[in-house]
Each structure stands twice: as C-alpha cells, then as structure tokens.
C-alpha cells in the first residue's frame, strides 16, 4: 500500500511538472508573435521595415557608391484608390537624405481610408533602409475625388552591404475600415 501511495505522490508531482511545462509552452507560443516582429525588425527578415519614424544615421555620406532605390506601388483589393510612385527610381549615395513622392487618389465619391504597407527587397537591406518620414506609419483619409501627394523621406544606411546595389521598396495599398472595405456597395 505504501508503495502505491508513494507512486501516487510521484504521479501527482509529475503531472504538476508537465502542466507547468505545458503552461510554459503556451506562454512561449503567445510570446512568439511579438518576438517574431522584433526578430524581423532586427534582422530585416521578410523585408519588414520599422513602423515609426527613425532618426537619421550620422555616419556621413558614402560618395564612393550609388544605390538604386526602386519604388513600386500596388493597389490592394477593395479600395477605390490609385497609388502612384511619382519617382520610380532614385539613385542615392548611402547616408544621403532623399525624398520620393507618391500620389494617392480617391477615384470614388465616398470618403474612405487606406494604408500603404511597405516591404523591402532584398530583405537583408530592409534594416538599412531608414524612413524619417513616411505616410506608411499611419492610415490616410481621402475625401471622394481627392488627390494628395505625400513624401517619403529616407536614408540608406552606409552600413548597407556592398553587394546590394538595388533596393526595391514596394507599397501595397489596403483599405482600413469595413465600411471602406465594402467600397460603399449595397448587396
């Protein structure tokens, strides 16, 4: 009897430990989401860029090389807007502050909001692409028929690996709110 009691205690202890381990894994899983974002931001995994304005790097200009910054826009689904890159390719020296202009046009007659989601390729270059001012940090509202020009002020970090000669920055435009998502349609 004492044997089976001692194994009972052991079972309880083991179960308690495994449940703790289980809890630990649940918490770890929840933590993975923000960890992944941090990891992406640090390593540039997946070409994600910072979601808020960055300070400029003070390393000075590297006049010995040029980097081609290519700006691509894509209209997403469900938003009656047009997004155009007015400057499609800009050549900059690393460290130089440059500006690219984008035009947002609401082609419908309804006020709506959208957001341009950036992605940089090659992804190793993402963390060296510093945005000081960008419309991508917040959502934009446009009246029906309104058209606005918005700047992207950026700097390519001189620490950009030498083998990267072209950086492509793609913006995909997504609608922000459900009303807008329906585009004002009645079904």
């Amino acid at each position, binding site marked *: 009897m004492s044997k089976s009691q001692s194994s009972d205690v052991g079972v309880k202890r083991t179960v308690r430990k495994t449940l703790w381990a289980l809890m630990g894994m649940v918490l770890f899983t929840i933590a993975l989401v923000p960890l992944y974002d941090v990891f992406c931001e640090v390593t540039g995994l*997946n*070409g994600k860029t910072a979601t808020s304005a960055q300070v400029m790097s003070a390393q000075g200009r590297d006049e010995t090389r040029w980097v081609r910054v*290519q700006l*691509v826009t*894509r*209209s*997403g*689904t*469900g*938003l*009656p807007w*047009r997004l155009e890159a007015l400057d*499609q*390719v800009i050549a900059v020296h690393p460290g130089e502050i440059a500006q690219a202009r984008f035009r947002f*046009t609401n*082609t*419908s007659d309804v006020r709506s909001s959208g957001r341009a*989601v950036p*992605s*940089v*390729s*090659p992804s190793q270059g993402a963390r060296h692409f510093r945005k000081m001012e960008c419309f991508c940090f917040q959502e934009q509202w446009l009246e029906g028929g309104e058209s606005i020009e918005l700047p992207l002020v950026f700097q390519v970090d001189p620490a950009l690996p030498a*083998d*990267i*000669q*072209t950086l*492509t920055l*793609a913006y*995909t435009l*997504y*609608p922000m709110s459900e009303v807008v*998502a*329906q*585009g*004002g*349609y*009645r*079904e």
Partner: protein
Amino acid sequence: MIRLTIAAFLGFALLPLIGNVHASSINTSSGWNMPMGVTDISQEVFHLHMTILWICIAIAVIVFGVMFWSLFKYRRTQGAKSAHFHENTFVEVMWTAIPMVILVVMAIPATATLKKMYDTSNADIDILVTGYQWRWRYEYLGEDVSFFSNLSTPREQIYGQEERGDFYLVEVDEPMVVPVGRKIRLLLTANDVIHSWWVPDLAVKKDAIPGFINESWTRIDEPGVYRGQCAELCGRDHGFMPIEVKAVSEEEYVAWLASKREAAITEAQGADREWALGELMERGEGTYNTYCAACHQPDGKGLPPIFPALAGTGISIDPSARQAHIDIVLYGKTGTPMPAFGTTLSPAELAAVITYERNAWGNNTADSVQPAEIRDLLGSQ
C-alpha cells in the same frame, strides 16, 4: 530472401519499359530526372543534385549490401547461432564520424551554389511578378509594359472532349518574354494568397507572398520557351496557372516591348469611341471566360458560398446596382477572392465584361457600360 530480391528487381526493372513513352517533354528533363536546365545556375544545381544523389545511392548500396548479406548469411534456417556482442566503441565512433565528413563534403558545394543564387546584384531588367488566383501578372518596371498571363489550354481538353495538345496545362496566352544573355531580376509578390513561381529549366522557385516582396534572378543563354507551374497550393485552380518564359534575341525583345506598348495604346483608344451592345457582349464573353469563369463559372452559376452566382441573382440583375457592379469589378472586394481589375484590365475589357455579366445567361438587364465611362471613372493615368 531471394524472393525479396527478385520482387524488388522485377518491380523496378518494369518501370523503364512503361515509363517515358511521351516524347513531348515540357522541359529539359529526361522524364526521369531533374532537368539540366538552360542557365548556369540550373546546370550547377543539376550537378549538385547528381553529386548528392550518387553519394546517397552509394550509401544505400553499402548499407543495404551489409544488411542483405547479413540477412542471407545468418539465416536461422541455415543453422546460424547468434553471437553475444552488443557494443563496439570503435565502430560506433566511426559510423558517427564518417557521416559527418560526408555531410561536410555535401555542404561545401551546396553553400557555394546557394551564394550565387542569392546574388541579385547588377541586374539588367527588373520584372515584377504578381500571383493572382489563378494567373500571373508581369510588369516590366520602367518599361511601361504589364500584362496578365493566363492558361490557354481550352476547357474541352481538360474535360476530355478534345485531344490534348503537347503542352497541355503548361501553355499561356501571353508568355513572359525576356532577352537572352541579360540578367533578369524577378520581384515576386501576390495579390491574394501565397503562390510560388517555378520554372524548372531556370532552377528558380520563389514564393510570391501577399503584401511582401521577394526576389530572385536568372540569365538565360539559349533562346527558347521554358515552362513552369505555380508550386504552392493557392486554391481551386492551383494546377491551372502555368508559367511560360520565352527567351528571345535582344532585337526581338525590343520589338516585342514596342509592340506591347503599341497594343496598350490601341487598347486604350477603344475608350474613345462608342461601342455597340453586340460588340461589347462579344468582347465581354472572351474577357469573362479568361478572367472570371474560373470562379463564377462559364454558366455564371458560381460555386457558392465562396464564389457567388452571377446568373439570375444579385447585383448583376438589379438595375439599381449598376454602379455597385462596376465598383466591385474595378476595385474588388476585401476579404474575398474578388480582385481589383480596375488597374489591370483596359477600360474596354472592363466595360465589355460588365455588360456581358449584366446581359448573359438570361440576365437581360439591357444595361450597357461604355469603355469611356470606365476610363472617366478611373481618371486618366
């Protein structure tokens, strides 16, 4: 034991007899093996593959050789008596160390090739490739040329009512044309779900991810047509969105670009004139079957609940919903597979397809949409 060996040999000896009857290979593969391909990279990958394959075959021969020899030699029916050893540090260390060495031997060329594949620098041409459910779109950056590339195999072939052609399911209406000998940088993204752009002869396979951009590159030295398919499950017609890359001489490429630009201008001019209903319907049917029928079905009945019916129901028969119908075709619908066609099809195609949807399959709203109206809605570019 002998039976097992005979069975194994019989099984595989039969394969070459029945395999590879069709002459029409869709790539440079022998039909049995990875294609050698037509780029330096694809050939390097092929040789790497063959090296690893032969190493694996050698390992298999040795391991199975020892195993089958033991099975044969130490049969109980032959009176084998079992030995008593069950440990031997020396052999255990050896069969841990030797595989390590083999792996290092494999890793060295693999690393070198991978580095080359990742070097996208100094590209001559940038092409943005976008995956849609279920077609590819190519945009030649800085060239003002962009177009969809759709499966061109007729439905009749798929459903067996017509004889299947040599390039069944790997042929498109508009191939991606590139010049030979130039480094082409491919930027990949997707409009809806994840797709993967794969052309075996170029050894390029890269995922196209919505909202994100990936890149890869190729340089083709041999003129020719190279075929591939979407490699990531992307929904219903995943098996029906092929890729065709046509490598041509520099002059042909330049001429092709010019003809594409000219065609786009002609197409845009379609919006300058009034179209008759019959003309719109005819054009619309073609556009519908290319871009809409995969989901909404050729008979307009859709595949509810994901792909709604257009025939006899909803906005396409509601006279008051003409504008809503135009909007959904132009701008798409969030959270559904309905993409925005406003920026990708011409005003004439859009007007025609909307007119078609409002009048085909007994919808008979008698509404017609003029290309000029669409052009004005979208605003001049």
